[in-house]
């Protein structure tokens, strides 16, 4: 009987905690990207993409400006402007506005990778940012 309760608790709580980490906007975006051909989003792949250095516009990675710790402030490497933390865990405004997320993916993928990101890359980035606090 005890085990039953435990299992029920576990089963109901796992989806709940995921739902808390991923806002409605994130869920909708993941659906959009799936429609555009993305397979299941992969946090680990997102993490690798985040760390990777691209050379199209000079050496740049996501971490160049946003750092490796998404719970902390970043700094624009070219203009020195402070950037608020990316992690929704400390900055609840992040990943709540679908339009804004798409705008920044477009802008920053071009800035960093020198091209727009694929739907798969965006999915991976999204779950990584949504779930990660630190590297």
């Amino acid at each position, binding site marked *: 009987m005890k085990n039953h309760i435990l299992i029920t608790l576990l089963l109901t709580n796992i989806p709940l905690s995921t739902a808390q980490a991923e806002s409605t906007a994130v869920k909708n975006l993941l659906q959009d990207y799936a429609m555009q051909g993305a397979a299941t989003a992969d946090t680990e792949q997102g993490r690798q993409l985040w760390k990777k250095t691209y050379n199209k*516009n000079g050496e740049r990675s996501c971490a160049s400006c946003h750092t490796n710790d998404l719970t902390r402030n970043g700094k624009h490497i070219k203009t020195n402007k402070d950037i608020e933390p990316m992690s929704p865990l400390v900055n609840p405004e992040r990943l709540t506005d679908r339009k804004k997320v798409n705008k920044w993916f477009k*802008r920053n993928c*071009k800035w960093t990778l020198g091209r727009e990101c694929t739907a798969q890359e965006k999915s991976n980035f999204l779950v990584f940012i949504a779930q990660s606090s630190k590297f």
Partner: protein
Amino acid sequence: MKNTLAISAVVFTFGFVMLPVVWGDDDFRWGEMEEYKHRTNNVSEVTNPVYKEECGSCHMAYPPGLLPARSWNKVMLELENHFGDNAELDAETHPPITDYLLNNSADKSDYRRSKKFNRSINLDDVPVRISETPYFKHEHDEIPSRYVIANPKVNSFSQCDVCHAKAEQGSFNEHNVSIPGYGHWDD
């Protein structure tokens, strides 16, 4: 009867004596405030929320009164290569930002320092860097390179607000200048 008299007296006093005084005073102060603002505020403050959001996320939202309309127009037409980077805007945000910049540009502003910026620029020139306008150069020519270019906390002249604490409020007054690592600047 006494009450009616008292009420009448109050109504009379407010209606015919106080109100004109308040209004008159108000009018006078508004006029004075505007003039005061133009005297002390060097350029108009950055107020447009779309401009602040779209342009001010990556760099300081430069007050439009620092460049003439023809310069802003050029900047807005070349966003695909914005000082070496892509800063494209979508069809929804490009027009209102362009309007804001053109309508508040240095050649349309009656703020004191905007006029100085505008007057310094040759009519045939279309500078896209504020730091390359003659007035800017003149105002910064006495600053040794170690204070700005060679100062790791400053790096360049492009981030006004690093030294001018009230830059986005349109104030470039010398009294508000503090250079990181060197402190107050007075020439």
